């Protein structure tokens, strides 16, 4: 038994002259929450589709739990929530769920009782109405998303792949989704999700892979990635904002490589060879009223911007990661 949930080796996917994924390799440890990060058009969805054998790679290999993803029954252990969501509109919710679970090799008799469990858990069974008996198009958008999520998990997959799961979710459903992901992890399942919202990834993921223009920029555990980026960052809190003297200090390229200004709160990156203590002294001398001065690890968001840059988004793409 491999201890990798997914082992991708040098996969390539070309669409006509455009290369969507270029020699991408990544390893996802079993039981981890793994973030696939990148701007829109970076090749995230294309990669996920290749993992699921929806698209065939032009080169390279993909293994899931130590077996090629094209092997019999391998994909039955995977649950997938695509970015573009949708269900059969005219079908009864219960029947849609049953159908999708049967497609994953489940027996109808085993699935039927679990459908009710899940519907109850997601609040789709109320004393007034059992939404399982309604047709899909009678449900609100939020309820349809819950049904879609149930469909992803109903067959109790060992690997769950969520493509941009937070897009279009209201804060309550987003929180429910985070809870569900953590529960999956507790139960030893592997979760992969793609996102371009770094904040979510930083809070939830054990490991990440950042890709841009179809290529891997970096990967590893979140701790490793942050350590690798060094602690050249400083969180600076000022009461009353920055006046001219303070701004002048921050603009000194001998001290500060760049800074992020949100009026009262700044994230700074020190210039190479600059000393944080010197900066602190200069700020005090300049008359800054300092509330917070903290040497910190860069956020994933910063690492992302630093490594990918604003140009990481390739123009002219379909919009699919």
């Amino acid at each position, binding site marked *: 038994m491999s201890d990798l949930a997914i082992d991708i080796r040098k996969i390539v996917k070309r669409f*006509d002259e455009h290369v969507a994924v270029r020699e991408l390799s990544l390893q996802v440890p079993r039981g981890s929450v793994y973030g696939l990060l990148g701007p829109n058009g970076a090749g995230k969805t294309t990669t996920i*589709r290749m993992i*699921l*054998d*929806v*698209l065939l790679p032009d080169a390279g290999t993909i293994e899931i739990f130590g077996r090629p993803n094209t092997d*019999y*029954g391998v*994909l*039955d252990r*995977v649950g*997938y929530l*695509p970015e*573009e*969501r*949708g*269900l*059969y*509109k*005219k*079908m009864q919710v219960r*029947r849609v769920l049953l*159908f*999708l679970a*049967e*497609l*994953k*090799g489940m027996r109808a008799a085993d699935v039927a009782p679990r459908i009710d469990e899940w519907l109850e858990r997601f609040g789709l069974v109320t004393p007034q109405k059992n939404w399982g008996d309604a047709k899909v198009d009678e449900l609100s958008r939020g309820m349809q998303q819950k049904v*879609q999520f149930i*469909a992803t998990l109903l067959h109790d997959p060992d690997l769950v792949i969520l493509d941009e799961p937070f897009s279009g979710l209201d804060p309550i459903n987003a929180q429910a989704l985070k809870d569900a992901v953590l529960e999956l992890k507790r139960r030893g399942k592997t979760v992969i999700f793609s996102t371009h919202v770094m904040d979510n990834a930083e809070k939830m993921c054990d490991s990440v892979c950042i890709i841009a223009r179809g290529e891997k920029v970096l990967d590893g555990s979140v701790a490793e990635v942050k350590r690798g980026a060094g602690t050249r960052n400083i969180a600076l809190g000022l009461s009353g904002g920055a006046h001219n003297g303070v701004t002048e200090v921050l603009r000194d390229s001998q001290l500060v490589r760049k800074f992020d200004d949100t009026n009262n709160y700044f994230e700074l990156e020190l210039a190479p060879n600059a000393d944080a203590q010197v900066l602190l002294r200069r700020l005090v001398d300049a008359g800054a009223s300092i509330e917070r001065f903290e040497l910190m690890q860069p956020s994933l968001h910063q690492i992302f911007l630093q490594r990918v840059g604003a140009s990481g988004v390739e123009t002219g793409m*379909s919009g699919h990661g």
Partner: protein
Amino acid sequence: MGNIGKLFVVAKREYMERIRSRWFIVMTLLVPAIFSGAMLFPVYVAARSSASGGALRNIAILDASGTGLGEQIATTLKTDTTLGRPDGIEPRVIVATTAELPAKERELQTQVEQPNSLVGYLVLTDSTLTNNVASYSGRNASTINDIDKLRTIVRQDVMIARLQREGVRADVVKDLATATFRLKSERITERGRSGSGTGGFLAGIIVGVLLFMSIVFHGQNVLRGVLEEKSTRVAEVVISSVKPEVLLAGKVLGVGGVGLTQQAAWLGITAYLMSFVTPILTKGLSGQAAAAAADQFGGGFATISLATIGLVLVYFIIGFVFYASLYAAAGSMVNSEQEAQQAAAPVLILLMSTWLLVNTVLVNPNSKLAVALSWLPWSSPIIVPLRVGLTTVSPITIAGSIVVAILGCIGAVWLSARIYRVGMLMYGKKPSFAEVARWIRYA
């Protein structure tokens, strides 16, 4: 679970969801009602139309022939049962000389011009018997049925009168004149007699129409199903669980099953409706007329053997799979119903090209064209069952054409699966032919 298991999961969903729909139930009940109505109506009209001939009793016969022909015709009109039951109105015979004719005619004309009076008048002159000429004027002179009927009666009575004048015995004359002649046609094939010739023709047409209609109808259904999966974006989840080829095959199988179910229901319901509608229709008709009427539609079906039904079934399945997979490919290329009609046009053209030649095959089922069409995979599923109903097709030709059609089928499914695989995940503008060709290469 293997691909076969998943194939049946997909097929089961397609089948059950369609069978459950209100549309299916309505169509299944409505079509046989319309169908049997359309078949029974002409029979009903044929059986009852003669009743309108009653107007012929309300005419005057101006007889200047000097032979009593007028009386003879009047008697025939009175006793002819096809003109409806005798209702007290009887033709009036006015015997006149040739010289009196113009005056009498004017007199009758004024009577006819009155509403609710005499319908018309028949004029027999002294040359009627020798030159076969008579004339009729009346309000119903444009009613083809009435005039045909009158012509037949006058001709018959003229014939009787002339035969009697030549010395033929009256009862012989009567017998000859009233005999209707029926020519029974029976087709003989290598396997022996196989029922009435016209029956086979009728059955052939019905089988052809049914095959064509159901392929078009259910083929369009496949297209719509594919389009729905694509436009609701459910396709991606489904394709992540089952190979596109399996999804395509399951869909075609499920919808095809719906088609077969519907046709079985149609035939069953139609047969049932006919079985109790026919006696009602033919009630009051003479035994012979009733038999003829029943034969007109019943006879055709009686000649269909079990082997023929099996053959039609095989060709339906092959033809359906061929066209339905092409329809599915067309559906996977586009994003809206309007675009779908355009994308499906080549498929429809292929089907129509066959349909337009059906008539030629009906007229001459052994022509070179008919034989050629039996070997082309896109036309053989319709043409071969048609020909089998009409003529003798050698078993080798049938077996060969089935093999070729199955090969064509495999080709169509292969091609469609490749287009489908790529098309299902392509959103945006409708692809050009060059793009589709690239999909086929890359998939």
